[in-house]
């Protein structure tokens, strides 16, 4: 077995039989992803209609045409409507198998229209990557047994890769002294201004006060977070996955407390894909009467 086949073995678990619990968890995960997709595209559509005037920073395909043409005349709301309408047959497995790919392209378009104002947010990336996994999964692995394994495996692969690449981006961008606690002081003050501007008031919480009061404490906070990112790729191994996931969730709570940045969808998705919920679901299925079990 080659090294990449070994990784594939961990991600897709080809020797494990599919169970009802796995299908239930997978369909709930899909519902979660699609629910967030609908929420984002409408939220971005309404904001764009109200506030976007000029393109400050073109992202993605906005580099190739002027997306400000789509800022008005309800075009982003129409796009949100089309995405929502496509999501229904996609979830029901009706229509062509490239329907998720169309959703992904329109979702990307909605993102680059909304975030053409200078901000590059990342809290929606995992939802986007999940839609991407569905887009290629429904084309290349459309079978009922293959699709859940491919989608979940691909999502876990890209989550692990994302965290580890973030570690290296910091190492390359700054060097080994990235974890110098004084850097955290700068970020706390920067995010403090954002809160002050957003809410009209800001006062540092206890963890921020601790970091601001001690270089050593601030350095430890950064170091723990940075090393947690480094081991993100260990999510690829299914036995280690729950432990890595727990550390990553802890890191996100740390980021929220120190820098006031919330990653709600990220954390919820980590909770869903990082633990073997299918075992609990299977146990619950076993509790229901046999005739109902057969239907499941």
């Amino acid at each position, binding site marked *: 077995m080659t090294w990449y086949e070994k990784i594939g073995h961990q991600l897709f678990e080809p020797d494990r039989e599919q169970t009802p619990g796995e299908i239930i968890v997978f369909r709930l995960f899909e519902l979660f992803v699609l629910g967030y997709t609908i929420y984002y595209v409408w939220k971005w559509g309404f904001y764009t209609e109200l506030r976007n005037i000029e393109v400050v920073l073109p992202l993605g395909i906005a580099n190739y045409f002027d997306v400000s043409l789509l800022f008005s005349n309800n075009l982003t709301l129409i796009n949100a409507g089309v995405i929502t309408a496509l999501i229904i047959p996609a979830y029901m497995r009706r229509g062509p198998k490239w329907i998720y790919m169309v959703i992904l392209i329109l979702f990307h378009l909605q993102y680059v229209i909304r975030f053409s104002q*200078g901000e590059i947010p990342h809290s929606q990336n995992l939802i986007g990557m999940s839609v991407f996994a569905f887009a290629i999964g429904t084309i290349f692995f459309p079978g009922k047994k293959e699709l859940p394994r491919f989608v979940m495996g691909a999502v876990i692969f890209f989550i692990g890769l994302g965290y580890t690449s*973030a570690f290296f981006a910091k190492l390359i961008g700054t060097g080994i002294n990235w974890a110098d606690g*004084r850097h955290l002081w700068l970020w706390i003050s920067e995010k403090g201004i*954002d809160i002050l501007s957003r809410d009209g008031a800001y006062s540092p919480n206890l963890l921020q006060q601790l970091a601001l009061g001690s270089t050593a404490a601030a350095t430890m906070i950064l170091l723990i977070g940075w090393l947690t990112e480094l081991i993100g790729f260990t999510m690829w191994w299914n036995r280690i996955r729950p432990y890595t996931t727990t550390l990553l969730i802890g890191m996100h709570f740390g980021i929220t407390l120190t820098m006031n940045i919330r990653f709600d969808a990220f954390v919820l998705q980590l909770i869903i894909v990082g633990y073997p919920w299918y075992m609990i679901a299977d146990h619950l299925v076993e509790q229901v009467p046999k005739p109902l079990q057969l239907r499941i």
Partner: protein
Amino acid sequence: MNRSESGRAMKLIGIVLIVFAALVATHEGEFWPFSIYPMFSQAGNPWTRAMVLDVTDIPDEEIWQQRPLSEKRGDPLPVRSVGVDQIDYSNFISKTENWTQSRREALLEMFGRDNIGNSRWMAVKVRGEPVGDDSVAVTVKPWLLLTRQGVEENPFLDESDYFRGGDH
């Protein structure tokens, strides 16, 4: 999924990774939803953000000077209360390189003339930088005064300050 399909899935992921790398390499690390997650990768640099200060009741002679954050004139306007996304606004101010007439109008549109009403709102740049080994200095630079009638530049700044690039 059997073992051969698992191998095929890994090959597909390999192809995706090549496309992923090509897209992020040619688009400064971002081609949503692909990203190398470069946020916070460059540590220790000074930063620039933005706020809006309500200077309606502040005398004209006090509103334009650059001051430390603790000595700013006017209370911060919670931009969320007028439906503006703070991060958008901050980037709009700090990343705009040339403050053309249309860009100034866009800023007014962002806040809405009706929301401004009879108030005077000062869009300020806020800069943070490390000082020595143990502190961060945060200064507030008044940038553009927003009123229902229009946008005024800071008379203490040179015209060229508004046409020479962002983040200063």
